């Protein structure tokens, strides 16, 4: 901030530079508020009573905040015909996301390692094909994938969803790690080879420990994508095995009586919490600079 006056050169006075800065910050704050507005409406609505929602102002703060809607959404709300809340589906999603993110990140890292440090004839074509896989629309693979899952006996199961997400995520995770390892000095790998480390030792001991930033990026990306996925969830699972996103849709669209906006909103907040959590926690570890100084130049 102290640089503001200094960066303004002779033609611009310090005062007008500061005005420009205020303007920029004001604009950014307004835009941030607009962006956060839906979250605000979700949170306040989930804490209001149904009467208050019907009668009142959408932007007003709740007069008498209550977490009754949250309790109901978690444990009692009716999804389809069973009224047990969303908690089961929430765990379904966790059971799907954690292995899918872990496996796809690990395989992506291994792929990136091989594609940059153990090049084989045709490595460009292999990478090109993996990259191409990133751009195939979800809809195009639905039917072949359903047949495949059926043949493998994994349809309508969490394992099946994990498999689908790993396969679909591999292109992206490989891309991330390949680009990161491309800049990783070859001499370190050579030094480790001379020191007597083999293929996996070099990976575990030398490359992975220096991959913190890209692991965080990949995990955030994969977690968000897989958690928020609806199409694969709705296509390859049903009923009890559905992930959170599908359950949320069923909850909101299957109202038999009064539309309980506060419960819908509370359920939506539950659905959004894990991704928010990952951003807040993992973002803190998003520290670069571990590589600095390892190799001069």
């Amino acid at each position, binding site marked *: 901030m102290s640089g503001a006056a200094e960066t303004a050169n002779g033609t611009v006075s310090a005062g007008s530079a500061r005005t420009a800065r205020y303007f920029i910050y004001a604009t950014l704050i307004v835009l941030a508020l607009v962006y956060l507005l839906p979250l605000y409406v979700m949170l306040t609505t989930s804490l209001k009573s149904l009467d208050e929602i019907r009668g009142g102002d959408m932007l007003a703060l709740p007069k008498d905040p209550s977490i009754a809607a949250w309790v109901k959404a978690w444990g009692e709300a009716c999804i389809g015909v069973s009224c047990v809340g969303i908690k089961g589906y929430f765990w379904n999603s966790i059971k799907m996301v954690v292995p899918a993110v872990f496996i796809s990140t690990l395989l992506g890292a291994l792929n990136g390692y091989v594609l940059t440090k153990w090049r084989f004839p045709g490595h460009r074509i292999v990478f090109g094909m993996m990259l191409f896989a990133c751009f195939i629309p979800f809809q195009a693979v639905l039917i072949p994938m359903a047949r495949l899952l059926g043949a493998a006996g994994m349809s309508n199961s969490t394992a099946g969803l994990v498999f689908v997400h790993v396969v679909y995520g591999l292109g992206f995770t490989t891309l991330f790690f390949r680009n990161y390892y491309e800049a990783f000095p070859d001499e370190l790998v050579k030094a*480790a080879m*001379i*020191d007597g480390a083999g293929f996996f*030792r070099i990976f575990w001991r030398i490359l992975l420990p220096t991959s913190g930033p890209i692991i965080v990026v990949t995990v955030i990306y994969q977690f968000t994508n897989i958690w928020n996925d609806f199409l694969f969830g709705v296509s390859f699972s049903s009923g009890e095995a559905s992930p959170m996103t599908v359950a949320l849709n069923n909850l909101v669209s299957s109202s038999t009586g009064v539309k309980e906006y506060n419960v819908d909103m509370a359920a939506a907040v539950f659905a959004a919490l894990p991704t928010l959590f990952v951003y807040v926690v993992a973002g803190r570890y998003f520290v670069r600079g571990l590589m600095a*100084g*390892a190799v001069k130049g």
Partner: protein
Amino acid sequence: MSFLEIRNIRKKIGNIEILKGIDIDLEKGGFLVLVGPSGCGKSTLLNAIAGLLPPSSGDIVIDGQVVTDLHPSKRDIAMVFQSYALYPNMTVEENIAFALEMRGVEKAQRVTAVRQVAKTLQIEHLLDRRPSQLSGGQRQRVAMGRALVRQPRVFLFDEPLSNLDAKLRVEVRAEIKALHQNTGATIVYVTHDQIEAMTLATKIVVLKEGMVQQVGSPAEIYNRPANLFVADFMGSPAMNMLKGRVAETGIALFGSNGVVVPVPPSVTKKLPDGKEVIIGLRPEAITDDGLVDPTARSIAHIAAEVSMIEPTGSDTFLTGKVDGASFTARTRAEVVTELGQSFRFAFNLDKAVVFDPETGSRID
């Protein structure tokens, strides 16, 4: 018997032949320096010795054992890289101990070995740091420590000083020399710096375009370069190349108005009359009268116009000009002259070598 043998190594990458049949022998405890301009294949050759880049044909033999098809880790070699290649996620101690750990050496033994090497290199106080917390010179030492701790059969150095500043480079160069003298290690060292090559080597190999130009001791390479390329590449300022023509009484220099100098004693063969030759004479062999080597037998005095004066402090380099041809002479710092003046230079022909301009090779 030679300890390291490089037998007819060829390497093709794509359609380009990087190494065109290299043969080198090195005795145990020798210090071999591979020197040459960029792209001459010296690093490729070092990588072939290390096993990081298998040659297209030929063999590498260490201590009687053919290692051409062995994995780098099985060759019992250690390498110091240009970038040092220290593992950024490990401390200095872990870096040095890594190779021992990979070879299954017990923890207690590793610690002892690391301490000992750290003591030799005076980096004991750095053992807990990470590479990013070290200066260039310290990283260089750690990289050497990593090589030393294994006590390998052959040490390989890939331009280890090129990332250091000038002052540090001289210091570390002396340390490497001392290390070689104290440990008797067998070393192969790659550099493009001819001074490093001269100061460190027991044997120099000059490479150009994948071919060996000359193999010899530093003195041989410096005093009796095999061809014009070696003569020009080694030594700074470069060797003077004076065009001449063989005459009845000797060799005529500097065209028609020039002088005739006796045939240098390095030439034993009879030169045909009228043959064009190039006389190579190092700057220190062209001096003022006060610096003439008293043991020299063949001195020619030639007056030339001074066209440049470069004082270095210890001595002064003068550029002399005769009939369009110029040469560099090394004179005493006390010599008084001015630009444009005529100066009497003493040419020590004992030191001269003669080249054939057609083939570029030295004439003996």
